[in-house]
């Protein structure tokens, strides 16, 4: 035991350099997914120091933390996350942080009950992919602006202005996306994807959404699922199915092979961004660009 203590103490001495004081007195916000990082950066502008935990292309269910996240979370004035179990066990941690005086906000809590899609079998379980409804995202942006003003009143004007600008942009995006989707007749609006991420999108834009894999990543698509969906595709003459950036392509390719073997041709219409945005430098690295890209990919492939 003495040895252990000696080693601990020795290493502490070596490792303890005086904590680097960041002269940065900016309001610091830690965010989880890339969608949330983008949202907070947009509304906060220069007034907020935003530190995103998850990078592009990361599956939020399976995120592995790095040591730097500890200091990020320690130094945060406010933590903003998606909630509804999107971030797995992290959600429990964030919920409990409120008890020890660290302010956390779950974006899922901003939505009214009827804006959230529930699991069919278990009422207490919700679909966490709330960002695929622009309506929801507008509600969230509005409420988040209010929350930021409450937490950091000094920068009220910045948040108000950026929030209003962003709402206008989201409304423009909504119009643009609706016009684009109008190009598709209602009977062609069938979206077949790798996993159940697009229910909100389907609800808002009248798409019938079919996910090959359930929400959980532990189960894989069953043989029967593939059969059922491939019959469905043939019956409805669906022209394209889609892969997702954060889910393996394999099952979707199996589905394509199954459909093609029955004499109906279905193509893979492209890769959709589901649980994470693209690289920050790309067009798909922000919410609006991602949404536009997804809609264009879907509409062009199904036309």
């Amino acid at each position, binding site marked *: 035991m003495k040895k252990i203590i000696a*080693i601990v103490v020795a290493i502490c001495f070596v490792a303890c350099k005086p904590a680097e004081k960041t002269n940065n007195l900016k309001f610091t916000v830690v965010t989880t997914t890339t969608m949330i990082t983008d949202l907070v950066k947009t509304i906060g502008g220069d007034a907020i120091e935003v530190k995103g935990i998850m990078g592009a292309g990361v599956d939020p269910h399976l995120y*592995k933390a790095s*040591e730097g996240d500890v200091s990020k979370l320690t130094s945060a004035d406010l933590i903003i996350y998606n909630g509804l179990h999107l971030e797995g066990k992290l959600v*429990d941690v964030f919920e409990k*942080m409120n008890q020890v005086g660290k302010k956390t906000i779950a974006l899922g809590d901003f939505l009214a009950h009827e804006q959230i899609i529930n699991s069919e079998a278990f009422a207490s379980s919700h679909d966490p992919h709330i960002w695929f409804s622009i309506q929801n995202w507008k509600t969230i942006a509005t409420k988040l602006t209010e929350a930021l003003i409450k937490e950091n009143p000094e920068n009220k004007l910045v948040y108000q202005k950026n929030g209003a600008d962003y709402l206008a942009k989201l409304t423009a995006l909504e119009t643009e996306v609706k016009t684009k989707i109008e190009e598709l007749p209602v009977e062609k609006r069938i979206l077949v994807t790798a996993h159940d991420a697009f229910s909100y999108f389907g609800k808002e834009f009248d798409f019938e959404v079919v996910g090959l894999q*359930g929400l*959980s990543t532990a*189960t894989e698509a069953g043989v029967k699922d593939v059969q059922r969906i491939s019959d469905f595709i043939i019956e409805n003459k669906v022209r394209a199915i889609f892969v997702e950036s954060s889910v393996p392509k394999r099952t979707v390719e199996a589905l394509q092979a199954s459909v093609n073997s029955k004499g109906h041709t279905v193509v893979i219409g492209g890769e959709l961004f589901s649980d994470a945005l693209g690289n920050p430098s790309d067009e798909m690295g922000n919410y609006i660009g991602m949404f536009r890209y997804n809609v264009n990919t879907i509409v062009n492939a199904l036309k």
Partner: protein
Amino acid sequence: MTNAQLEIQIILSLVAVACALPGVFLVLRKMALISDAISHSILPGIVLGFFITQDLASPLLIVMATLTGVLTVVLVEYIQKTGLVKEDTAIGLVFPSMFSIGVILIARNAGDVHLDVDAVLLGEVAFAPFDRWMYNGIDMGPKSLWMIGTILTVSISLLILFFKELKVATFDAGLAASLGFTPIGIHYGLMTVSSVTTVGAFDAIGAILVVAFMIVPAASIYLLTNNLKKMLVYSALLGVFASIVGYWIAHFLDASIAGTIATVLGLLFFMVYLFAPDKGYISQWYKIKQQKTEVAMLVFMLHIANHEEEQERNVNHLQEHINWTSQLARKVLRLANQNNMIVIKNDVVSLTPKGAEFTNKAVSYISDNKNAELEGIKQNFFLFRG
């Protein structure tokens, strides 16, 4: 160093000790992979817990996971006890079946719920300091610190109480039975403790590091000592050492804490494997080299003993007669000379009385193949020990 960082290191050290203790016994019993098996086999427990509570965050899910973990080790122990299959096969029989039951339950009943081991159980040590236990509004410290502390206290108490029984049951189950206590009871007890520790540690620090903490320290120290008490103490120390060193490497690299510690443990094992005094690679390699030279010397001595004529015993012609390189010939000659087995006069080699005795014994060993002779040779003439 912030409080959070200190707490992470304390949690890691406690988990390292809590895993190393049962780990030693698991490695000795050839059941090291049971911790990995448990990480899969607890899925049906979690699923059933969810069906009962309908809440992914309920503690009942962890309780059910622990029970399923115990069920896993009981089944493994039972199958292994039949003697029909080996230890690893018993593990391999149990955990895929249990995992599949969980997968089928999800696919049939809960396809639209995010239900898996990652989401429910597996923790991340980086976030452990933020999950605190509040009692009457007072901050009592991280929850996982309390949980793993309790598990550790219980397992150390059990270890001290049943140390003798554990020792005998692990090394000699037959003797244990004849001494009047049942090794089966001890085995089930040990496996239950291992299972509870594993599930508790999963909740605190995640799966892969728990497997590493269970196996690597015990396996490394096993190369250094066969003494059970020393194995337990040093394995625990090695685990703690790796945790703290790994943590700070992760800090400077901004990398995954669990991943870095597991890597450090792997490197430590590699070092031990290379440099262990007796079972290590370098020491083994050196021993084999020594043996080769010893055998060469024996051949040389037999040659000298068999030849009266000086022509055959001349130093400068030796290598032609026995077909050696001059380098090996010189080495053998030096070794024999150092051990007073031969004398060289006028370039002619003769055996000393000691050399003659050695050769005689060796010849009689070769002809009647009795090990007693060999042991005698080894003890009296073990060349490299003077």
